[in-house]
């Protein structure tokens, strides 16, 4: 069961990060907080797993990073979307919606039968 959930997370984590960054430039801690707040803590993920995802997205040139100073005055790495990332976000969102719709209709069919 654990394995299934992890896979699901990995598939969606990229989308979550891209979506969160659509609001502006954020560092890893803020991203983790926002995902937790927006999802009402329903998406439980180890916070550290965010970082491989961030670096992976940076590697694909969907987001870019810059060192800056956090609210608390510490130096932190801020991420923001690149134009390519914005395009990707739209695509992923569409993809997700159609996937979710397809899943819903399949599951709905099962229930009604």
């Amino acid at each position: 069961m654990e394995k299934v959930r992890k896979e699901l997370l990995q598939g969606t984590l990229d989308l979550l990060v891209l979506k969160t960054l659509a609001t502006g430039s954020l560092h890893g801690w803020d991203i983790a907080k926002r995902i937790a707040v927006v999802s009402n803590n329903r998406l439980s993920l180890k916070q550290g797993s965010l970082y491989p995802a961030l670096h992976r997205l940076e590697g694909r040139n969907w987001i870019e990073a810059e060192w800056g100073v956090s609210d608390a005055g510490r130096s932190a790495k801020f991420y923001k979307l690149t134009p390519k990332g914005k395009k990707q976000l739209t695509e992923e969102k569409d993809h997700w919606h159609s996937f979710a719709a397809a899943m819903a209709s399949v599951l709905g069919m099962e229930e009604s039968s």
Partner: protein
Amino acid sequence: MTIRKKLGRLFRSRRQELEMETELQFHLNQLAEEFMAEGLDRESAERAAKKEFGPMAVYKEQIWDSWRPPALADIHRSFQLALRSLRRSPGFTAIAILTLALGIGANTGMFSVMNSIMIRPLPYGNSEGLDRIYRATPENPKGAISPADLLDLRQEAEAYGEIAVYAYVDMTIVQPGKPADLTHGIRVSSNYFDTLQVTPILGRSFSLEEEILGNHRVLLLSYATWQRQFGGEFDVIGRTVRVNGEPHEIIGVLPESYSDWRYMGHVDIFRPLGLTPEETQERAETTMHLIGRPHPHLDREESHTFLSAISEKLAGTHPEVNEGSYWWAQPLNLIVADAPSRGVLSMIVGLSGFVLLIGCSNLANLMLARTIARSREFAMRSALGASRLQLLKPLVLEALILSLMGGVLAVLVAVWVTDWLTLASTNLEGDVAAFYLDWRVLAWALAASVATAIAFSLAPGLFAMRIDVNEALKSGGRTVSPGRGHQRLSKILIIGQFAMAMILLAGAALYGKGLHDATSRRFGWDSQNLITGQILLPEGTYPDQESIRVFHQETLEKLEALPGAVSASISYYNPFLPWHNPQRFVPGGKNLPEPGREPLVEVNAVTPRYFETMGTPVHTGRGFLDSDTLNSPKVFIINQYMAEAFFPGENPIGQQVGAVDESGYIWGEVVGVASNVQSVFPDTQQWRYQLYTPMAQALEHRGEIAVKTNGADPEMLLPLIRQTMTEMDPDLPLRYLRTADTAVEDDTYQQRVLYGILSGLAYLGLGLAALGIYGVISRTIVLRTGEFGIRLAIGARVHHIMRMVLISGLKLSLAGAGIGIAGAYGFAHLIVMAFPGLNLDIVPVIFGTALVLIFVSLAASFLPSRRASRISPTEALRAE
């Protein structure tokens, strides 16, 4: 992403790592602070933060992977696995790296010798465009040309390109207030340095006018001479020194790089050609050496056509000297090592390859054993669906890691080898035969390492791919006992090792024995209690024959009067070093051979007591007397070969022999027959016929002095001789004053270096082969413990077991030696071809070597066989 960024990601940089660390730590700190704000103490807060964050190490690994392309990330992981596996068996790893360091190091060292001598280009501008031009005659394929021919050539050289000329000339240099120096010099045409594209670092090179006699008294110095004789002072330009008795002005100094030991590196002084009027008419004496730089638009064919046209033309205009000669050219870079030395150099690289192969097969055997021990693991992975490539990858990677580490150490070994060679090859005059490690050598080491890795992971790899999955998994936790096939593979490797060791050892022994025989042979001379040295009388002080004669006479009187001196002589040559003065002779009263077909005879001019000084016996007739002078009838002493060939079945004494001259024959009477003499050089075959003429009838400025002593300490006599010569003439340089035994040793250093190389490789090969058989026999015993236990339990005696083990080792080494003997014969023939002067005792040496090899293998298998004899039957069977 920019290329730079991409490349940057290939390597995990320190900065990147620090940034990642800071980023993750920042998050952890924030988490911890949050927990503390909830009321936890610092310690529990940090623990909770770590829990919430998740496995840090895993994330880091994932982040690193995201920096690398996927293939690289995979290789990285496999690499770490291989490293871990090697770290688990440090003994194997250490032996493997050491073997590889020695094997690859020996190989790389030998390659660097080959590279330094025959691959590295000469230090001239565009040296690949330079040709050495020869005039081949029936006697000498690499002959020089005469000055008169040179003048004819120059009128047409424009069609060819640049043709530069040089001629050797010994020069006596006298600086005010310093002892005279006898130096190697050359006279060069004014375009010599332009043709080589060498520019002086100080001053200028020669102008066209300075090539004309009278303007020629200007000098260029080699860098070494400038440093040694002139203290490297900058105001040396414009200074005047006396050369051969005449004042010359120094106008320039050449760069250090110009003096390459491989080609004319020993030349100290350069002077313009300055042909004398007699020389411009000279067509018989060939003293001019040519270097050409053909026009770039000429191909090889065309430049050769030009040269053949020249030779045909000269043969037409001057048939008496040029009939049957032709001109040809060879790239200058090729002549630094002639065909035999190229052969020898390739041979030592090949032999060092044998050493590497022996090392390789040792490692293959060790790896094979490791693979067999891990066959369950391999079977498991293969059962889980690993592809062949995936099965082989860890093996190849382990091999690659080992051989690259070995390769790095090998470069150190190669540095050490070349340092030793440089030291051993530095000759009396301080000319350093430099050996370089350049990129070619490093590339070779890398290539050798990779090739080695592939070679020694091949055998275990083949084994791993053939593992029977069912069989291996069924056999439980125990090691799979190696099947017959793998034992055979092991044995073939050992036999191959011994065959190669046999060839190495026999080759070194053959050459060493031949060299020892050659340098210790005393054919027609006796170097005991003999001191020799070289003189060159300055032409300015000794302008005519009479002045030289007087000098010789007085010198010999003084030398013979020294305490401890028995007799003294002056001659063109010593009997123990090669002579270079072949002339054509005909016997009197016989049918004269066709012109150009007369036999060649080595000619030496000697003073009366030469024969007793050198210990060359005069068998019949008389030696030379003080009464044989310029005005008395011409007399000769010939050697036994010449007497037998010229006057078969007759008494040679009183017969006439004639020297072939341009105008006919110069006849003289044979007054004695001397013993045949042979120099210590094994690889220079001289003319068999030797002829002596009285020094008084053929006086020359240069000569060899020799003093026979009564056994007095040479350390006492050497300074006395030097002092006597200085008293005779303070301007007289004396070169190479040393005992004859030292002279022989100094002049055969190259051969001894080669012997050092050969024996070093042989010992290394033998050691590795012994190690190999030791390892394989030890392993067989471990594998056969159960069998031996049973044998002992049913009544076999300990010595039976030991005999079985020894015989199995003996069989391997006998088979190896057998194959090796065939190879050694082949090798012996190579040595004979490369060194025609060596007398090899092929059969006894090869069989002696085989005995040594078998003894070594017995010793190497005896040690493990003792372990076999200590097997306790009960324990062995219990383990079963």
